[in-house]
């Protein structure tokens, strides 16, 4: 297949599909509902856009063009490469349904369920169109603009998931006497957060898995529509709370893209250092917890000691250990503190020792190897179809990494490698993370060495608060100060998708602005949502203890999974 090219797509489909101008430079195509599947299939098969990143919708009720009301957005990119394309399609108001693409991409299954859940757009021929984040008895569609944010509903009956399980088991109820149904989670120490999986067991072998998510759904996207663009930053901390600074950067970078702002060189380099420290923290948690899952408990302490060391540095930098809230639109909350450099040096000195310890403990350990090698394996094609990104996809041997594919913040200026696995099993996922920590350390060391001087906030009156001394001194600075606080930062109207390579994969933000100080819509593309959608595929046919080991290696963070 030839390399992905939008130009070729443009020339091929000239006439049948309309390209929409986008103020932020994204490639956006508008498809008719009847052509949608053909357009998407052609993009996937003929033009190399094989990774469906996200499906979402925009409710145009309060925008000038409110007919038809909903705009369904498909975001695609090649599994290796930088180009990104959005295909948008407006289902007619009277029918409000589109043909499903869940047979083209497995990732579309959950993505379309989410659109149905949040917006009420139906997908014809979808295998299992039911709510995913909200409770099964929930009335209404919360992300519609006419759904009141303060409205409360009393929901008490848990979903027994038997509708899905019955479909999977097939046959009559009586024949199933051999198998046992077991609920793992939502409150189970091995489930890494409030996740639930209903499994159908035959002996110790998992025959069917039905995952249920949404226990930690707190309406991030609805809350984001309530305040100003700055108000969203502390909410992003709570997405992937193992590496909250990465979410801050991902969000702020998207808003900066809308505003056409490039952070100062110093801010960019500090962000790179923090992104890599965040990646290390995240991987430490993931690897440590995964090792506990397979019975190697001591490693947990050795790795968490190092995580503690990073937390100490970040605490001194921004004042909080877990929810950093350190990045601002156009800059950072503070400059580096005195002692940051020594702190980072300490991390770079001690972390390799801990990694070496862990490697010595487990690398040749028979029990460990038997528990993880070949467990929960997935091929690259399937992983791509499921929308895998990040370490889980790299473990399958696909060198997918936004830092290389679409270098931002000068990532192309550092000397580092993308780590890939070969088998896509639990062992590879653990080892990809272990090696990525080493690569991250290399980036941190290089970034600290070249740390440029200068301010950390951009000199742009639209986003940066003026210095306090000026606020007193001149009326213009005072007015500017209060405008930013009272009305908020105002990106130009339009739709924009921005993403970074977070610890778990591509963390994307699809933001719609109507030109006011309030975001019209903020949609997160959480990497582990799509990874978890493959959970049945990864666990079915394996042993029940392998299910636990596999889950740990996927690093599902409920905060970002459920939003």
């Amino acid at each position, binding site marked *: 297949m030839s390399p992905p090219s939008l130009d070729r797509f443009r020339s091929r489909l000239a006439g049948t599909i309309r390209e929409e101008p986008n103020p932020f430079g994204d490639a956006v195509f508008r498809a008719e509902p009847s052509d949608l599947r053909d357009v998407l299939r052609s993009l996937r098969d003929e033009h190399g856009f094989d990774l469906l990143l996200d499906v979402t919708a925009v409710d145009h009720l309060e925008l000038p063009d409110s007919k038809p009301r909903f705009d369904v957005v498909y975001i695609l990119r090649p599994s290796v490469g930088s180009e990104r394309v959005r295909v948008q399609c407006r289902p007619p108001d009277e029918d409000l349904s589109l043909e499903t693409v869940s047979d083209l991409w497995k990732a579309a299954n959950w993505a379309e369920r989410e659109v149905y859940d949040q917006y009420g757009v139906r997908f014809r021929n979808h295998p299992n169109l039911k709510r995913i984040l909200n409770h099964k008895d929930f009335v209404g569609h919360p992300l519609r603009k006419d759904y009141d944010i303060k409205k409360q509903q009393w929901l008490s009956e848990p979903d027994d998931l038997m509708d899905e399980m019955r479909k999977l088991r097939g046959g009559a109820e009586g024949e199933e006497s051999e198998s046992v149904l077991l609920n793992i989670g939502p409150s189970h120490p091995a489930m890494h957060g409030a996740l639930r999986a209903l499994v159908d067991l035959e002996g110790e072998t998992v025959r069917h898995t039905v995952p249920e998510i949404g226990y930690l759904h707190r309406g991030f996207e609805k809350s984001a529509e309530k305040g100003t663009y700055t108000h969203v930053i502390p909410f992003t901390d709570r997405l992937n709370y193992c590496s909250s600074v990465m979410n801050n950067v991902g969000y702020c970078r998207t808003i900066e893209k809308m505003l056409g702002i490039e952070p100062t060189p110093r801010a960019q380099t500090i962000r790179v250092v923090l992104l890599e420290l965040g990646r290390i923290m995240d991987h430490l948690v993931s690897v440590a917890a995964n090792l506990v899952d397979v019975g190697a408990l001591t490693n947990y302490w050795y790795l968490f000691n190092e995580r503690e060391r990073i937390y100490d540095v970040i605490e001194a930098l921004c004042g909080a250990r877990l929810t950093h809230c350190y990045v601002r639109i156009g800059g950072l909350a*503070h400059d580096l*503190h005195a002692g940051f450099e020594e702190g980072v040096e300490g991390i770079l000195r001690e972390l390799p020792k801990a990694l070496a310890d862990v490697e010595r*403990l487990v690398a040749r350990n*028979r029990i460990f190897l038997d528990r993880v090698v070949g467990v929960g394996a997935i091929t690259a094609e399937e992983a791509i179809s499921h929308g895998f990104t990040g370490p889980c996809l790299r473990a399958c041997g696909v060198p997918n990494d936004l830092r290389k594919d679409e270098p931002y913040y000068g990532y192309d200026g550092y000397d580092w490698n993308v780590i890939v696995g070969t088998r896509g099993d639990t062992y590879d996922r653990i080892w990809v993370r272990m090696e990525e920590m080493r690569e991250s350390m290399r980036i941190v060391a290089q970034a600290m060495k070249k740390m440029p001087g200068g301010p950390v906030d951009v000199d742009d009156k639209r986003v940066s608060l003026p210095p306090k001394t000026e606020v007193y001194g001149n009326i213009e600075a005072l007015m500017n100060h209060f405008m930013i606080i009272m009305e908020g930062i105002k990106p130009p109207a339009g739709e924009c998708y921005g993403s970074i390579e977070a610890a778990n994969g591509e963390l994307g933000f699809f933001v719609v602005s109507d030109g006011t100080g309030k975001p019209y819509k903020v949609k997160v593309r959480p990497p582990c949502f799509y990874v978890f959608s493959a959970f049945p595929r990864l666990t079915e046919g394996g042993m029940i203890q392998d299910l636990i080991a596999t889950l740990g290696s996927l690093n599902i963070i409920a905060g970002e999974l459920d939003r």
Partner: protein
Amino acid sequence: MIAYVRNIQDACASIFDGMAVTFSHLFRRPITVQYPDRIPRRIQETLPDRTRGHLEVDLDICISCRACEKACPIECIVIEDVRIPKDSVAGVDGKETARVKEPTRFDINLYKCMYCGLCVEPCPTGAIRFTKEFEGATDDLSRLHLRFVTPERREVVLRKGEGYEREQAEKARKKAEAAAKPEGGKQVDPPAAGEESKEGDKE
């Protein structure tokens, strides 16, 4: 056969490897501390300067501009205020800044607060700031609802407010008198209007 023997060899070797690593950790300095007792100093004293603990408000320098109230994403700050006769306070770096309002109520709901720090940044005088206190566990939620304006202070501020009302009434009366005298009216009006709009900007 060779592979089988090597496997056994590996398995045995890895046990000793593991023991060696674990044993070496016996002689390393622990990274944990015995909280809350058995530490030489209170933990709060050892926290870094930027620690985002409980919020506090210095009402003597608060100009009631409500920037913090607006900056809070979850509305945990509630301010009520009155106009007072214009005076000035010493803010950051001791720089003088004018004050035309003073709060009669300044509540922070610490049990809603997520310690993000967005309210501290816009404060023009540095009146709202973080302390290093973080131990908020309590069996009584109302203890986390901080009310910075005490009833006594409220009385004082309200009296100041009444003073302002009187001042305004006086001004209005003088203005009306001046307007009654046709020749003096033009001289009194412009400065009064200028002052009004300047104050309006600062709100």
